[in-house]
């Protein structure tokens, strides 16, 4: 019997296999560069900042002397921001998502809103800062306050929350709505007692991820004038404030090595906070996947 493989161009195929092997290696290297960059970033920051990670960092206000400087006001400022921003952006974002998924008719206005939301998600954050500066700080006379900052950041994260909440709501099977309607529930009863409870963990996951994005944002708050040197804690929403990334930025922009180390230690605190938020989002997501 003739071997049918003899007439195949084995040499040409061997060459192509070599190319395939080489390229696979290149693609693998390219992929690992992202991973290596993350490792380098973490190692760089931890080795620079670990020495300044001490109680004063949490207990002290900023100071001209790096040895005495802390980020108490920035940590508290960030937490206050979260406190105002989280419920506000949750209500507005989930409201918009419910409207678009459950109430909106398929018409031009709905399509326009949807397109608008995805376009807003691509607007540079500093442009939101310009909006906040003009609208909240000046026109609405909120001044350079916690409230003006929280409003600005709410507008910034809304598109992210709306899109993820829409996905969570869309994942609720139609049968749950039907079951509710079949029991004589009205639209709002169906939405509030059937659809929302089924999608709440998915929605919350999206909200937490959006909050962790907001907690790390610097540019818009620089624009609306969050201060870089705050030696007091804000007592109300109309007080001026600072947040962690701005404090870090302030330290990064000083040339002295001691302040660079301080910046790195501030970054460690910020990253740990983000890590905790992301972990809770992952836990929620896993719970959510189990229930669906």
């Amino acid at each position, binding site marked *: *019997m*003739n*071997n*049918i*493989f003899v007439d*195949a*161009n*084995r040499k*040409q*195929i*061997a060459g*192509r*296999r070599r190319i395939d092997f080489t390229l696979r290696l290149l693609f693998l290297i390219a992929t690992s560069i992202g991973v290596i960059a993350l490792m380098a970033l973490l190692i760089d920051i931890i080795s620079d900042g670990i020495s300044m990670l001490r109680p004063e960092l949490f207990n002290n206000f900023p100071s001209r002397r790096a040895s005495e400087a802390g980020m108490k006001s920035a940590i508290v400022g960030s937490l206050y921001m979260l406190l105002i921003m989280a419920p506000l952006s949750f209500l507005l974002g989930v409201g918009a998502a419910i409207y678009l998924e459950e109430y909106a008719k398929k018409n031009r206005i709905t399509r326009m809103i949807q397109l608008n939301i995805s376009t807003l998600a691509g607007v540079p954050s500093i442009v939101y800062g310009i909006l906040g500066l003009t609208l909240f700080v000046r026109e609405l006379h909120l001044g350079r306050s916690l409230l003006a900052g929280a409003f600005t950041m709410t507008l910034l994260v809304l598109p992210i929350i709306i899109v993820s909440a829409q996905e969570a709501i869309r994942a609720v099977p139609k049968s749950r709505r039907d079951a509710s309607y079949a029991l004589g529930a009205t639209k709002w009863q169906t939405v509030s007692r059937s659809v929302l409870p089924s999608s709440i963990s998915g929605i919350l996951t999206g909200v937490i991820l959006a909050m962790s994005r907001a907690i790390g944002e610097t540019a818009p708050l620089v624009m609306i004038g969050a201060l870089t040197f705050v030696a007091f804690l804000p007592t109300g929403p109309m007080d001026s404030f600072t947040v962690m990334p701005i404090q870090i930025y302030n330290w990064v922009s000083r040339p002295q090595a001691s302040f660079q180390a301080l910046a790195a230690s501030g970054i460690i605190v910020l990253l740990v906070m983000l890590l905790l938020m992301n972990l809770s989002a992952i836990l929620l997501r896993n719970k959510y996947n189990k229930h669906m």
Partner: protein
Amino acid sequence: MQTLTKNQTLIEINQLNLFYGAFHALKNVSLRIPEKAITAFIGPSGCGKSTLLRTLNRMNDMIPGTRIEGGIAISGTDIYSGDVDVETLRKKVGMVFQQPNPFPKSIYDNIAYGPRLHGIHDRKKLDEIVETSLRSAVLWEEVKDYLKRSAFSLSGGQQQRLCIARALAVNPDILLMDEATSALDPISTLKIEELAQELKDRYTIVMVTHNMHQAARVSNQTVFFLNGEVVEYDETEKLFSNPTDQRTEDYISGRFG
């Protein structure tokens, strides 16, 4: 082992076992498939017929967790031993799938894709290959004036014949057809069956079909599978008129499956 026809054996499957993870999908399969004839694999869904077909050009390799024991030799070469690489194997063992799957390219580029892969870039040579392949698949007359059009402009049946032409263009010896007509209307199905009849003089064809009547109409030999095992292998005429195994008889008389 019995030799069914005077044709020489081309594919020899020896004590083949295949596992998907813990699932034992093929159990001790041994078969000799003769050249230049049509061999049909029949059986209820999940019986392993498609799995066996896909081991012949090693398409199963891409499914993670697949493990193979035993051997398959094509014209004396063990295709799992490393004597032959998958690219060479697949060049000589063409395949047509259940759903027509033309590339999102022109009719011409669909046919020329394979030859280009294998190093043919000469325009004249490619033109020639495209024409002979389309003629072999009885599609040339229908598309010769539209070679630059997208392959998606063709009907389902035409697309499937295009896929056959695409497979023939790399000059294979064996053509695997994995339920190649199941997505087509009856007239297109008939055309593909006629085409298979014409091609069997030049190619060794192995087809999986869910349709017993098709196997009876088209094939020279038929293999009946059940639960990953070969129940019966015989001349098509004999298997359908006078099966030796009770299970075969139950299946072809429509009592299950």
